[in-house]
């Protein structure tokens, strides 16, 4: 018995070693996640110690050590001591929890950037909100964050309940239809992290991820300026891309997608104005590449069965023209 529980702890420590990860709460890259990770190690330490104590007591009881000392009176005394001890530990842990909670909440007070995330069945509509409307723009399934700058997130949902969670940066907050929730993130370490929907939301709950890219402030400004520009209209002599735009505007794409700078402005599906500039497509289901984009357009229901994107029948040359055009939208 004792050997076994001991080895259980050893296994745990080994497993904990491998905790770097793009989607891991144990590898914090933001102030909020950092605070929570600290609290976690504290809890793990205290509670782990209690667990070992209980195991030792149990083993002691089973092996019949010092049986004689177990008179009713001493045991009752031990009981009150035990109850008192548990209460004190509980109060301590509660206090630490309140402390961390309050500190994390205050972190979002002086946010300079506001991002409005609207969750839809099985992808994320992301809108950078500026006081001047013409400087706010939309993107999808990706969140660029300036390092060191507190960012306020406004969270909405248009269909069912989802949950916005980027483990390396902060805990999750649900997006609930009929409510406007808020959270805030301050990225500390540049890098690419992966977030995922954490509330069961239907068929493709498993493939509803988003990229969180923390970049230094100047790089973030450059990215934002590039995202503000509408899609370039292909020049007449660029035959292939003009035909690609024409295919886009005369096929099912125009019913669901927006490309700023063209007449397509439907919001059923993600905004494709800068689709080629994204790291992944289909809410993280595929890394972006021209081939993957082609495969996704023709046969989405085998990659994400139950997603709202239907299979699109296109002639091969139409598809190539369309891909040439979409690939130019960086």
């Amino acid at each position, binding site marked *: 018995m004792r050997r076994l529980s001991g080895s259980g702890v050893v296994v745990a420590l080994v497993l904990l070693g491998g905790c770097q990860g793009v989607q891991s709460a144990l590898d914090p890259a933001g102030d909020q996640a950092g605070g929570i990770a600290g609290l976690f190690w504290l809890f793990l330490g205290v509670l782990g110690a209690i667990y070992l104590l209980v195991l030792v007591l149990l083993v002691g009881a089973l092996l019949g050590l010092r049986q004689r000392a177990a008179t009713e009176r001493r045991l009752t005394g031990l009981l009150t001591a035990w109850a008192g001890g548990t209460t004190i530990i509980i109060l301590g842990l509660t206090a630490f929890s309140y402390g961390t909670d309050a500190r994390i909440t205050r972190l979002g007070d002086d946010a300079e950037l506001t991002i409005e995330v609207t969750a839809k069945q099985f992808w994320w509509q992301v809108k950078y909100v500026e006081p001047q409307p013409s400087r706010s723009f939309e993107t999808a399934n990706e969140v660029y964050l300036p390092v060191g700058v507190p960012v306020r997130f406004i969270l909405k949902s248009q269909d069912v309940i989802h949950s916005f969670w980027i483990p390396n940066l902060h805990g999750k907050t649900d997006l609930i*239809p009929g409510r406007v929730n808020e959270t805030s993130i301050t990225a500390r370490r540049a890098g690419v992290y992966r977030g995922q929907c954490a509330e069961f939301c239907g*068929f493709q709950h498993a493939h509803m991820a988003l990229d969180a890219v923390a970049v230094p402030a100047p790089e973030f400004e450059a990215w934002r300026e590039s995202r503000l520009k509408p899609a370039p209209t292909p020049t007449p002599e660029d035959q292939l891309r003009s035909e690609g735009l024409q295919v886009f505007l*005369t*096929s*099912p794409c*125009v*019913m*669901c997608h927006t490309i700023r700078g063209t007449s397509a402005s*439907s919001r*059923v599906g993600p905004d494709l104005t800068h689709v080629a500039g994204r790291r992944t497509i289909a809410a993280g289901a595929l890394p972006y590449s021209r081939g993957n984009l082609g495969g996704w357009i023709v046969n989405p*229901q*085998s990659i994400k*069965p*139950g*997603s709202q994107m*239907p*299979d*699109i*029948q296109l002639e091969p040359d139409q598809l190539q023209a369309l891909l040439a055009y979409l690939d130019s939208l960086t």
Partner: protein
Amino acid sequence: MSSRCHDCVGVALALGLAVAMAALTASCEREERDTKAPPESQISVSSVALSPLQPGEASAPPGGSHRSIEENAFNLAQGKQLYTWFNCSGCHAHGGGDIGPALMDDQWLYGSEIENVYATIVQGRPNGMPSFRNRIPDQQVWQIAAYVRSMSGLTPATASPSRSDEMQNKPAEQSMPRQEPKDTHP
């Protein structure tokens, strides 16, 4: 309780179970979530006539080969969602009509069979109905056509959609009484 009653309870139980099983197997299709529907053949669409008049002897209209579409709850629910997304509600409201005619009454200008509705969506109609050919994939057109039929109660109530999480408008399709289609229009 005399013993005569023992076996009549047994028989009743067995009978009830048999009936229930038969009804339940029918519901298998109703609940299928087939997101990758096979492409429907075009021929069957043109096989359904728009006018009941036929020179010579009138032949019976071909059976609705796409009836299975409108008996599937998932298809009808998708049809209702697409009806809003693709702005059908802009012209037909929630079935009461606006720029376009009402869809929840028993008046059918261009035929009430699902193939007729499919043709109306794909071909468009001269007085203002846009043609969605190559704009809405086939499977989705069938879904919208099935939903349009459910608006006047022509689809089974168990499969028809219930209310949406939006403003209360007309009673949900599942509680719409069946209104026999009439092809008279002024």
